[in-house]
């Protein structure tokens, strides 16, 4: 998969950054030709991922980039990385209805449903990296 030159990176540290990240993501989605519904899906997914950074890590960043598939299809990729504590049990957080003691979940199963591809890497004590992609149909 070859990334195009277009790439935007938004640092995430406060709740204001969540809005910035999803506005950037939505704009890029629009530029790439995604319809309103897909734009909403992408912006919401970014919002969920960026919020996890605010909730669980000191800081992180969201990178949004245009991508091209092997058979020429175009799409958008969002990578959200943080330097947080990492996730101890990925299976658990990927279950619908999972929430911590304060009643907050990580919104990951929902985010996965909104996008076409979902990958997560995490290392305890180092951080977490989530990559999601949506393709133009």
């Amino acid at each position: 998969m070859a990334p195009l030159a277009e790439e935007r990176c938004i640092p995430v540290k406060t709740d204001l950054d969540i809005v910035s990240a999803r506005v950037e993501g939505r704009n890029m989605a629009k530029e790439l030709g995604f319809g309103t519904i897909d734009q909403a899906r992408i912006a919401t997914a970014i919002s969920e991922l960026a919020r996890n950074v605010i909730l669980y890590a000191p800081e992180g960043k969201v990178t949004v980039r245009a991508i091209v598939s092997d058979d020429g299809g175009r799409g958008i990729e969002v990578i959200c990385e943080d330097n947080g504590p990492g996730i101890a049990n990925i299976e658990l957080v990927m279950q619908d209805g999972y929430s911590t003691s304060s009643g907050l979940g990580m919104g990951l199963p929902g985010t996965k449903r909104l996008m076409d591809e979902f990958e997560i890497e995490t290392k305890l004590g180092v951080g977490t990296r989530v990559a999601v992609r949506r393709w133009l149909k």
Partner: protein
Amino acid sequence: MEVARIPILQIENYLVASIQTALHDKAAIQFRDDLLERIYATKARGLILDLTAVDVVDSFLARLTGDIAEMAGLMGTTVVITGLQPEVAITLVELGVELRGVTTALNLEKGIAALRKMVEKESSNGTTG
């Protein structure tokens, strides 16, 4: 930090608030507190939250809305959400987030009509004077 407040209007015995800008978390929480304060102060029977200008509703905002409905309900106020955009509705359903305890209506006009019906029903049932 001063957070621009969302204006809350009063129509008859109902409060109406329309979210016009992208709300970051702190502003959203401030909004919720303002709303509950106004409900308490005016003893409004109903609250209409208009989301026509909202282009993203994530799990945080959905939960906040549910909180508003629950807390308002405790004070005897019915909450109606209006103006949800189709793309937001579809996304919310796919996200798997439910807007609990909330009645929804297409627009302000229908929202007020729905409120009237519900408030009338409550009065005739003899609940909350």
